[in-house]
């Protein structure tokens, strides 16, 4: 990779509970509206279920539950970011997906120290945008068991 690439990062933006998040575009393989989610009994609370995306089984993580937010009013109407880790497919369920933003790396600020631990866990930094703040998501951390990451 060259420095030219590193100087700017493209984010897929999404909102969860009114907050704007950004996931590095390199990690987002898909953006889709999840259908036919199968719930998994005995699963950790943040696992919303499993679903079939073009023949592949994906584990769906509810970002609201991951962040300790109240459940979505309309469970049906949500979007998902498809990501992969160690050959396994995961979908992060968010309220909505917005545009792709290209932001200079240098503008990225550290995570504020007073951010709630459950939020700080999954954030790698913040960007100050006009009128609002974008929280940069660490997608791998989103896949850690919530109880594990709290204990850590």
């Amino acid at each position, binding site marked *: 990779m060259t420095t030219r690439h590193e100087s700017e990062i493209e984010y897929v933006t999404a909102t969860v509970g009114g907050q704007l998040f950004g996931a590095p575009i390199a990690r987002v393989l898909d953006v889709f509206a999840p259908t*036919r989610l*199968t*719930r*998994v*009994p*005995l*699963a*950790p609370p943040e*696992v919303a279920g*499993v*679903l*079939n995306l073009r*023949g592949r*089984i994906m*584990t769906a*993580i509810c970002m609201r539950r991951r962040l300790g937010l109240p459940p979505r009013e309309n469970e049906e109407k949500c979007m998902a970011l498809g990501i992969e880790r*160690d050959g*396994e*497919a*995961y979908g992060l369920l968010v309220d909505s997906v917005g545009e792709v933003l290209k932001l200079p790396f240098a503008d990225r600020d550290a995570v504020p120290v007073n951010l709630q631990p459950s939020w700080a866990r999954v954030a790698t930094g913040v960007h100050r945008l006009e009128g609002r703040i974008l929280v940069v998501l660490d997608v791998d951390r989103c*896949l850690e*068991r919530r109880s594990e990451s709290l204990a850590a």
Partner: protein
Amino acid sequence: MIGRAMNDLLQDFLTEAHESLDVVDVELVRFEQEPNNADLLGRIFRLVHTIKGTCGFLGLPRLEALTHAAETLMGKFRDGMPVTQDAVSLILAVIDRIKEILAELERSQSEPGGDDDDLIRELESTASDASGAGKNVGTLVYQVLERPLRPGEVPLDELERAFREAPGPSPAEEERRANTERRDDERREAAHRAPTLRVHVETLERLMTMVSELVLTRNQLLEIMRRSDNPELNAPFQRLSNITGELQEGVMKTRMQPIGNAWAKLPRIVRDLSAELGKKIELVMQGEDTELDRQLLEFVKDPLTHMVRNSADHGIEPPDERRAAGKPEAGTIRLSAFHEGGHVIIEISDDGRGLDAPRIRARAVRLGLVSESDAVKLSDAQTFRFIFTPGFTTATEVTSVSGRGVGMDVVKSNIDQIGGTIDIKSATGQGTSLRIKIPLTLAIVSALIVEAAGDRFAIPQIAVVELVNVNGDGEHKVERINDATVLRLREQLLPVVHLNALLKLPAPVNVDDEHFVVVMQVGSRRFGIAVDQVLHTEEIVVKPISTMLRGITVFSGNTILGDGSVIMILDPNGVAGALGVNSESSAPHEAVAERAASEESDSLVSLLVFRAGSSEPKAVPISLVTRIEEIDARRIELSNGRHVVQYRDSLMPLLPINASVEVRSEGMQPLLVFIDKERSMGLVVDEILDIVKDELEIKVGSRTPGVLGSAIINGRATEIIDVAHYLPLAFEDWLHRAEIGDETLTRRLLLVDDSSFFRNMLAPVLKAAGYEVKAVGSGVEALTVLERDLRFDFVICDIEMPGMDGFELAERLRADPRTEHLPLIALSSHHSPAMVERGHEAGFGKFVAKFDRDGLLSILKERQVSWARAA
């Protein structure tokens, strides 16, 4: 320094050398027993020679010197030197050393330093001793060390030449080389072996994944086709479907390996063990060609080795003890493998002292696994399962072989991991037998799709024993003891848990509503899982669950159904664990049930119950049914006035089971598919009802064609269908069916046939004709049975069997004064006058064609008349 081509060559050499050495191991042990077998020696010699040649070429002096010395000694054998156990042990020691060097070579890419003078010296002296010229050992050592490794001594085979002539081997040359090499080295085998090609396992794995995806996509398309109505799509979809099926089968086949591969090391191990333990042990292996998925093979390899070791160490007694017990001095360990209803069965049995139930019980109490008062209530079958507990050993002293407390628990966990089951049977003084049942492949399994709280789940068929319909006022009721639910089923009490409760799903609104109990068996433990509905069975492609979900032990994977939705697969072992039925201490009532189950397990038959035509249930032994299918009725075609369907790349005839069953023209048509070798046939039924395990005792014979008679199954009068009746209807070349005799003299028959299909076909017919039948799969088994129990009136025996054939069995029976008068009837698929002649010489009174049940029954009847006269 080593170039790429050289590196590849070294890699090839290592792979081939490992394979060759495994063969040499086995062949040497055989050779020791058959020292006059020149073919065998020739084969061993050639393999060692090839290794030597390649070593010389690759510049591996240590290996070359070692193989050369071994080859020289084997040359002496060929020239007539007597084959001694010491000499064979020496060569085996050389093989071990070669393996050590190869391992180091593989690790470091170069031959390790050091020398093998010790072994070479011994080899040389053994070789010269035999030649009789009392040469000085010292001179020989000198000779060996002094002699330069002359490359000219190594005959340059095609491999070397091809390599020298070309800068690097091109694929075409590789191929040619492989062929010519084989011609040179294994001329005999080459005659009946097609050219082969090495393919990396990863490539096959990837292919398998892709095929699984294709199967899923096909299933999804099928679902869409069902909903839409576009006849234009039918033909291409049909074709796609067929090709997918073929491809799936083809790729599965490439992953299949004969189980003999996992057994290759066993003869050597048993040989070494018998020497070490001072016992005489014969290892009999049957069904080496039985194939299973290579992934599974890896899982069973170590457990098998361990169990054989256990048998040799704990099972087989020392010769003097055996003699005192009136047994032959040499003990026998039998390994056999065969396919049964989509599973592979592996049996390891010995004729040793058997498991010591009281001792195991005492040990279990000492380890705190069970209380003293509970222990006495345990059946033997339950007690035996303690040996699967980690750290459990009853061996009083730790030998180098076993008794270290590692083992059977590992065996069990390996078998568990691949969704298999393991059962033990043992009788004091008579031996122990372990039976392992594993799926043919891990990737695609047959599963029961059930529903609980509106969600669907898959239960692997391998663990399902039967389905029980439970309704408020029916015969089967779920009862309550405080909070625990139990099901009364044929004098047994089964613990039952509702799937909703197990999975912490919302409880059903009305628990007394009609629902089903899936009776599952894990090891010897049975339990019931109550579900709201049983939907259907489906071949599912098992996908691993993600790391996030891996902690949930009740699921073994997930899968995509034909309609595109994802469902979770229940893990029978995990479910048993969650229920606590795995803990070896159990309630007394369960112990009683267990005992009852183990006592009658021999006479229990798994039956498929279905409805066809009338409301009266019908049943057929499930071991006869190859598959239960539901096909789209639109796929059924009419050809020559007969119903046929394209099934697994051929046309399968469909037969309604009786005149009142109509072949459907729309919707789904349930079928019972029977496959025997090349032929397949589908029996059209109305509805599949149940799978039950029950005693198959035909109470009333029948004169209706296609019906063997009626039996009480699950408390209801059920017609038992005679599959053999339909086979000739579907194929003219199957012989015609006989009327069943209605004599009810209880005579005991021993039926010996290696084909489970025929055993299963003949046994019910003979039972229906009033005989008591014991069916066994081989001559050796027949002898074992007769050893214990002589009360048979007839032995009916197949002629063509692997291992001990019918003639040999007959000769053995004739040679033994206890069995010489036993009437023998030969079954044969074709019999020439010469064969009949040989049969009479061997002691067969009668010859009957395999499908001629008329003939068989009339011969039996004749004999009975003569008995009646004699009486």
